[in-house]
C-alpha cells in the first residue's frame, strides 16, 4: 500500500502537518509525489431532472397546445430523467489504481419535433459504463479509460488516454489527453439505419498554484468528428456530416482564510465549424459553516449564437413548421441550434459525517430564453424553457 496517505485523504490538520514535514530534506525519499490513494472510495449520486416549457400566451393564438386562457403562464412538461450513478475507486498498490463508474438513466416525457413545438412522447433507458486504470510515478500519472454507453437507439464506445506531469515543487501540472469515440445510431423511427459518428478529442491543460490560497487552470480542447450529426426525431433536420470544435477554458479557485470560504470561478469559450460560438460563466461561493457543513450557492450564465443552418421559428405559420430555405444543403429547427442565453441558479449542501463519509445535496434551476443572449439578437418564437435538477449523493472511503 502507499507509503504516503494522499493529502486529500487526510483531514485538514493532518494534511497541513504532512505538507510541513515533507519539506524537511531527505525524509521522504522517492514517493514524494502523487501516489495511488491509500483508501478506496465508493460514491453514489441520484439525479432527478425535470424540464418544462412555457406555453405561448394568447397573443400568438393557435401557437401552442393548450387553452391559453387557462392561466397567465401555463407549462407543458418535457423530459424527466431519473438517474443513478455509482463510482468505485480502488487502489491496487502504491503505483496503480483503478476506477469504475456505472450510470443508469431512465428518461421519459416529451420532446419537441421542431423548435419548441409538437411535443412527442418518448421513453428510454440508458446505461453507461466507464472504467479506467491509472499509473502513478514520481513526476506524474497516466490514465487509460474505456467507456461504453447504450440506449435503445444509440450506442457509444470510446477509449481515452490522459497524462499529467508535475514540476519538482508540484506547483505546476501539465495535462495532455486524447479520446476517441465511435457511436452508432439506429433511430426507432427508421429514418436512417446503422449510422455512425466518429470523433477524436484532444486536451492540453496546465494547472498552476498561484499562492497559498489561489490555484488556476487553463484548458485548450479540440474535437474533430465526422458522421451522422442530425437529429432523426426532428422535422427538417439535416446537419453537416462533420463537426470540429475548439474550447478554451479557464478556472480559478480562491480561498478566503478569514471567512473560511472559497470562490470557484470558471469561464469557457467555445467555437465550432457550424457557426456556433458560446461563452459560459460559472461562479460558486463555498462557505464552511461549521460542524462539517458547507453551503455553496452557484450561478451559471450561458450564451450561444445560432448555427449557420438554423431555421428561425415563424409563429405565423403555426401549426406548420417553417420550410428550410430553398436549396439549403443543411438546416435544423432544433432549439439547441438557436441563439439564446441560459441562466442557472443552484445551491449545494455538503455534510462531512465523519472522516470517511460525506453526503451532499444539490438543487439547481435553469432557464433558457432567446432574449437572454449576451449580444446580438436571440432567436425568436421559441417558448422559454426551464429545467430543475436535484442531486443527492453519498461518498464513503474504506
Amino acid at each position, binding site marked *: *500500500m502507499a507509503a504516503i496517505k494522499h493529502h486529500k485523504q487526510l*483531514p485538514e*490538520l493532518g494534511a497541513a502537518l504532512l505538507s*510541513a*514535514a515533507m*519539506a*524537511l530534506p531527505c*525524509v*521522504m525519499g522517492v514517493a514524494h509525489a502523487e501516489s495511488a490513494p491509500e483508501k478506496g472510495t465508493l460514491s453514489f449520486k441520484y439525479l432527478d431532472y425535470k424540464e418544462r416549457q412555457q406555453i405561448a400566451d394568447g397573443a400568438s393564438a393557435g401557437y401552442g397546445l393548450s387553452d391559453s386562457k387557462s392561466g397567465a403562464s401555463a407549462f407543458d412538461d418535457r423530459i424527466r430523467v431519473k438517474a443513478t450513478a455509482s463510482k468505485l475507486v480502488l487502489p491496487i498498490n502504491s503505483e496503480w489504481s483503478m476506477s469504475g463508474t456505472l450510470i443508469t438513466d431512465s428518461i421519459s416525457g416529451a420532446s419537441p419535433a421542431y423548435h419548441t413545438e409538437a411535443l412527442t412522447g418518448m421513453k428510454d433507458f440508458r446505461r453507461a459504463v466507464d472504467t479506467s486504470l491509472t499509473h502513478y510515478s514520481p513526476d506524474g500519472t497516466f490514465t487509460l479509460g474505456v467507456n461504453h454507453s447504450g440506449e435503445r437507439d444509440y450506442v457509444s464506445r470510446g477509449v481515452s488516454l490522459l497524462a499529467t506531469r508535475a514540476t519538482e515543487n508540484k506547483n505546476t501540472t501539465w495535462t495532455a489527453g486524447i479520446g476517441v469515440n465511435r457511436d452508432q445510431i439506429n433511430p426507432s423511427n427508421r429514418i436512417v439505419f446503422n449510422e455512425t459518428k466518429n470523433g477524436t478529442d484532444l486536451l492540453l491543460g496546465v494547472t498552476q498554484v498561484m499562492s497559498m490560497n489561489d490555484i488556476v487552470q487553463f484548458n485548450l480542447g479540440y474535437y474533430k468528428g465526422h458522421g451522422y450529426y442530425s437529429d432523426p426525431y426532428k422535422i427538417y433536420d439535416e446537419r453537416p456530416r462533420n463537426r470540429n470544435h475548439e474550447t478554451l477554458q479557464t478556472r480559478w479557485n480562491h480561498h478566503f482564510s478569514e471567512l473560511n470560504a472559497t470562490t470557484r470561478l470558471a469561464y469557457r469559450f467555445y467555437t465550432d465549424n457550424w457557426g456556433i460560438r458560446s461563452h459560459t460563466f460559472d461562479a460558486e461561493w463555498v462557505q464552511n459553516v461549521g460542524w462539517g457543513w458547507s453551503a455553496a450557492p452557484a450561478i451559471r450564465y450561458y450564451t450561444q449564437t445560432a448555427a449557420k443552418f438554423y431555421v428561425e421559428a415563424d409563429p405565423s405559420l403555426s401549426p406548420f413548421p417553417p420550410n428550410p430555405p430553398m436549396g439549403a444543403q443543411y438546416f435544423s429547427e432544433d432549439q439547441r441550434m438557436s441563439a439564446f442565453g441560459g441562466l442557472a441558479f443552484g445551491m449545494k449542501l455538503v455534510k462531512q459525517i465523519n*472522516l470517511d463519509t460525506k453526503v451532499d445535496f444539490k438543487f439547481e434551476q435553469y432557464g433558457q430564453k432567446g432574449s437572454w443572449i449576451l449580444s446580438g439578437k436571440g432567436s425568436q418564437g421559441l417558448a422559454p424553457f426551464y429545467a430543475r435538477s436535484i442531486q443527492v449523493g453519498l461518498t464513503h472511503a474504506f
Partner: protein
Amino acid sequence: MTTEVSKQSTHRLHFKAMGSACEIVLAAESYSDVQAIAQFAIDEVLRIERKYSRYTDDSIIAKINQQAGKSPIPCDDETWALFQFATQLFEKSDGLFDMTSGVLRQAWDFKNPTLPQPEKLQELISRMGWQKVQLQNQSIRFSQEGMEIDLGGFGKEYAADRAANVLKEKGVNHGYVNLAGDMRFIGPKPSGEPWMIGIQNPRQRNEVIATLPMSHGGLATSGDYEKYFELNGKRYCHVLNPKTGYPVNYWRTVSVSAPIAVLAGCTTTMTMLKEEQGLSFLESTGFDFLAIDSSGQFHTKK
C-alpha cells in the same frame, strides 16, 4: 520484488546514539552486506547527533545558544528547513510546541524529586518563546540573552527518517530504524507481513499492552514514564508545558503512526502537551493512534 525475498533473511544491528539504545533491522542477502549498508545509516544518525547536539561544542545548536542576544548565525539548508518546520509546529499548536522551552530543564532535575520554586520557573519562562526568535536571510538570532534551543522535540525522529531514507537509497526494501522507540519503517518483512511492534505498558516496564502491525511510515511514542519522579503520590514527568513550566499529566502514553517519523513524534508530543484537548487534536490529524489517559482508559483510532 518477490524473487529477492527467498534469498534475504532479517538481521538486527544494535548501536548506541543520542544517549539511547538504537537498532537497525533489515533484510539483506548476507551479513557483510547488512554491516556495510547499516553503517551508512548509523553514520547518518551520528552525523545528526553531532550537528544538533546540545553538548558538543562544535554543534550548530551550541553555536546558536552561545550567541543568544548577540549576532545572527547563518544556517545551512538543512538547519534552516528544521527551523521553518519548528515555526509551523509552534503556530499549529498555539505555542505549546516551542523549541526554546529547553531552559526549563534548569528547574527540573528528574533524579532529584523536588518541586522548583515558582520564581525560578517564571524567570525561565521569561527566557522562552519561539516568537522571540528572529529568522531571516537564512539566519537565526535570539533577541534575548539566556535563550536556548534544542532539537529534543523531533531530533531523534528526524534522524530515524533520514537514516531510513539512506537505507532505502541503498536498495533496502524491508526493515526499519529504531532510535529508542522512535521508528521509521522502510517496508514489511520479506514475506510481506508487517513487523509487529509492541507498545510498552506505561506502568510496567517489561510488559507490552498492545502490538501494532507496521510496514511503512513512522511510529513514535511519548509517555510520562520515560523520565519522571513521584512526589506525594503525584507524578512529574519530563514533558513540560511551556506556558506554565509544569509537567503535563493527562496522558500516560501516546503512540502515533504517521507517514513520516518526524510527524508521528510531533503529534505524540503535541497530544501530551494539549492534555484534555489532545484527543480531539489526535482525531483531527487523521493519523492512527493508541493512547492511554491518566485513568488507565484506552483510546484508539483503527
